[in-house]
């Protein structure tokens, strides 16, 4: 008899536990879940942050920043000169303007060679073709070659390889001219 009562009581407690208790319990359970999610987010943020300093360090060490390429007269109009260390081409347009073109194909990142015979950059990977201004002559490249800022000081052409300028088309003001 007593035993039956006991099991009955247990069952009752299982079916509907005391009200005050249940709200406290559900609150605590929810608190656990919230804390757990917070901990996971924190962990994910930490893991991502872990990968960051290496990236920053490499960027700083990779390029010395501003690269001196030589005097203005060294570059003939309508020519492109490769700079392996800075990973760019210094192009001099017909009218004497300078453009520093990244050698990275904007399609998938292959290195484009300059063909002085055809006056074009022809990507060996997927046959994108750019003209001397970096404009796309033939797809699949989606946009012109990226630019680096060019500075001309005391008739010396300098290129800031740390900065990359993305563009959707060539505009005359992108070219830099030596002061007369």
């Amino acid at each position, binding site marked *: 008899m007593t035993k039956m009562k006991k099991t009955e009581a247990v069952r009752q407690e299982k079916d509907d536990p005391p009200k005050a208790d249940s709200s406290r319990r559900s609150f605590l359970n929810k608190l656990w879940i919230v804390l757990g999610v917070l901990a996971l987010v924190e962990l994910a943020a930490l893991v991502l942050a872990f*990968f960051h300093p290496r990236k920053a360090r490499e960027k700083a060490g990779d390029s010395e920043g501003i690269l001196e390429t030589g005097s203005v007269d060294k570059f003939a109009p309508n020519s492109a000169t490769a700079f392996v260390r800075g990973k760019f081409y210094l192009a001099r347009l017909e009218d004497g303007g300078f453009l520093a073109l990244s050698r990275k194909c904007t399609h*998938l*990142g*292959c290195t484009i*060679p300059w063909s002085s015979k055809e006056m074009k950059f022809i990507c*060996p*990977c*997927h046959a994108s073709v750019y003209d001397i201004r970096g404009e796309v002559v033939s797809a699949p490249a*989606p946009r012109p070659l990226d630019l680096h800022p060019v500075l001309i000081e005391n008739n010396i052409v300098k290129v800031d390889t740390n900065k990359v300028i993305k563009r959707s088309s060539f505009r005359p003001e992108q070219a830099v001219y030596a002061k007369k």
Partner: protein
Amino acid sequence: MDRRPRRYFIKEQPMLQPDEMPDRPSLFQRIRYSIFPSTLRTEKAREGYRRLFNSLILHFRPRNVPEDTLRWTLTWGLGGMAVVLVFLLLGTGVLLKFVYQPLPEKAYESILHLQNEVLFGRLIRNIHHWSANALILVAFLHLLRVFFTGAFHAPRQFNWVIGSGLFLLVLFSNFTGYLLPWDQLAFWAITICTGMLEYMPGIGLWLQALIQGGPEVGPGTLSNFYAIHTAILPVSLLILMPFHFWRIRKVGGLVIPRPPGQGSGGHGQTVPAIPNLLLREIAVALVLIAFMLVFSMLFNAPLGSKANPGLSPNPTKAPWYFMGIQEMLLHFHPIFALFVIPTLMLVALLALPYIDYQLNTAGVWFASTKGRRMALIAGLAALIGTPLAILADEYLIEVAARLPTIPTWVTNGLVPLAVLLAAVGAFHFFMQRNCAASNTEAVQMVFVLLLVAFLVLTVTGIWFRGEGMKLVWPWDAGT
């Protein structure tokens, strides 16, 4: 199922009594007994130990299996082969880890050192290389086998998802391993593949920088790929694989093969897994290992010249398993070729078992007689249609050039995709009107259509693309 209680432990271990022993054991016999006391056990005790060992195997295999599922033409041993290859890869991979150095200045030299100076170094690398490629092939065929025998129907739906996850892990393992030799082949394949990430809307650039560990493929990329390839992916594989197998056990084993038109009729006869299943598995494993060994002795894993970031080779191709996607790049705008279409493909793959099917065709090859015919027609249609579409796009259609005012993602992306989907839809409608098939057969038909189309793209990319990615005959492409 047989539920007789069985003893897998040994109560007493009777030894040979003195009068059963040879008269006076010689020195060698005494030494032998001292090293292997078990040889003194009686026949009965040895039998007990054998059973103990068998019961260890039975932790991984059921005691009894339906006899029909042992049939070679049900599984082709493909799942087992994948497991064997994974273990071959783990073994050779650990050996390679002792020699390989994941730094751009040293990686290529360490591979040369491995091949030229380490005893069997080249063989170990060959086995690792060819096993990795074979694993993609075997895992893919396994996926096809599961699909075409309807082994994704309830209650096996979620195991299809796990299997797809495993397949992605295998692909990713191959991809991360591809960079490690740091030769021209590796460097440029990874450059263009990570370049593809750029087109992912929103997070693409961020993800690319994270994976490359810097602005371009370099030391950061190599250490990232090395860590992923040798730690994260193998561990994930080893966790997911047992989960995959356990789900098979939970649903009572493999699908029971049956001829079309016959209802599923229980288990049929069951036989003990030892030796029926075990011997078959060992036979498959041994033949496969022997094959991989001979193949690796005959054919060397490719190694180009050392990576040169200033010189892209012509043509630069992705690893062969991504050639289908690279081929799509030539026909679609990058956002579509690299993001929209692969995402749609992946979603379709994962959603496949959750479609509300009219027929559960588990165990019937190609669903039914009608299903077989429809699959054949779809396969032929794709086999003829895809090359024609490639040729047309290559030589005839110049949509983007004619409509320069409309952005290329519409002319080269949205429009061709819509045309493609319309073609698939029309094919589906036409077949449905002629065959009046259930949706089980119809889904299979569309699957075959897309599968064959993708295979044709892959084959085109691997063998029919030469310098400047122009269409060439395979025998001209090599030069």
